[in-house]
């Protein structure tokens, strides 16, 4: 019943999905921003790897929010940004 470990099913991980490029263009237009102005997400992030997103993709994150019920956020997948010392 335990099954294979899939981090996407963990309680703390909200639903992630890659936004298709056509949709991404509309989205950025609607928000009136450039992709880098979105919050970032490292390409090394385990979830990014699990859903197969590539650097340059926009990931839609559907979070459960205590104030809004469901909240849709976006993150921009970037190559290793802040090298940790």
């Amino acid at each position: 019943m335990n099954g294979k470990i899939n981090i996407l099913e963990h309680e703390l991980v909200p639903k992630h999905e890659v936004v298709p490029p056509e949709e991404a263009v509309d989205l950025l237009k609607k928000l009136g921003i450039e992709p880098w102005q979105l919050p970032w997400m490292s390409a090394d992030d385990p979830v990014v790897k699990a859903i197969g997103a590539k650097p340059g993709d926009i990931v839609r994150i559907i979070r459960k929010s205590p104030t809004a019920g469901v909240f849709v956020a976006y993150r921009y997948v970037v190559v290793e940004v802040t090298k940790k010392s």
Partner: protein
Amino acid sequence: MNSPHNVEEEIDALLEKIKSEITPQLFEEVSKKLKEAVKKRRLRLDQASKIVEEVVKNYYRSLVDPGEAVGTITAQSIGEPSTQMTLRVFHYAGVREYNVTLGLPRLIEIVDARRQPETPIMEIYLTDDVKHDLEKVKEIARQIESTYIENIAEEFGIDYTEGVAIVKLDREMLIDKGVTVEMVIEVLKEAGIGEVEISSEDPYEIKVYLSEEYLDPVKIEKLRAKILQTQVKGIRNIKKTIIQKRGNEYVIIAEGSNLEEVMKIPGVDWRKIYTNNIHEIERVLGIEAARAAIIREIKNTLDDQGLDVDIRHIMLLADMMTWTGHVRQVGRMGIAGEKPSVLARATFETTVQKLVESAITGEEDTLPSITENIIIGQVIPVGTGLVRVYMNPSFNKKGEENMPSGEKNE
């Protein structure tokens, strides 16, 4: 005249119109309450329509205004209650068997994004088939808890003249930790420090005939530590486990944290497992999980102290901390240190150093934010100060456009 069934349909139609304007949660609530009111209080349609209107109006009123200094409000809303937190670190209330950092020290730890929390704790939930069975739970707990030779040795000594290390094992501890003599011999053999054999006089005494290289008197003290620190079983970094009963299920609380390894243990519900080490969550479960963990940890820390801070402030803080895709601290090495303005950075810590650094690199300050504008006495870009006048030089006095069509400026 109006049958209640009909009214309900009408209300649905009414709500459908505003569905895209308000949040799903609010929508559900309004819908439920209106239908209840129709049944119980004979709410009329025109009244319902007024209520819906009011809801939308109130929703828009409760939104944050453009230019509101949410960051400053967050800082104050978390900062002020924090000053009232008591500095009790080592006191634990009631029958708590384990020690957790609480209050201000813990809050500082979270916002500083420390690599290792002072007291890492894991909450290990178990799968349905084992969580009610104390014996099985104990078995899993034993598998998780790491045991070193020093935990099960009754006596330990090194005979320098013969070059033999003698480990005498404690029978009771062996049973308690679920370790056999064979297991100890196995790990000692793997350590590769010499020949291992059981003493002829005592089945619980293990002799290790050290190889030549370790007989150097300088190295021998290091060797002692090495043998005692040899791990017999369990998962690294998990120092102790405690079984707790929550409702009708058992939960293992572990001192120490190793998310990756514990998830792999059969019988552990890896969907619910939790640690208070935020960096570990980021590494194993990703940045969004780290964000959720930051919110949960800060909320719990504040709630424990009886402080009521709106969750939205904490959410904003967590958003800022995870903005770059990695957890970064709030202080000088993180959020405050990455501000685009030199003056703003210098206002925070290490003023002289920051100014010297930027002078050397010839940095420019475009005064984009609040702090630097306060320093030079300008209007700060917040609220009404955010509004700027843009002039379009291509318009003439009459307001006609001179530019050729198709090249309009915004």
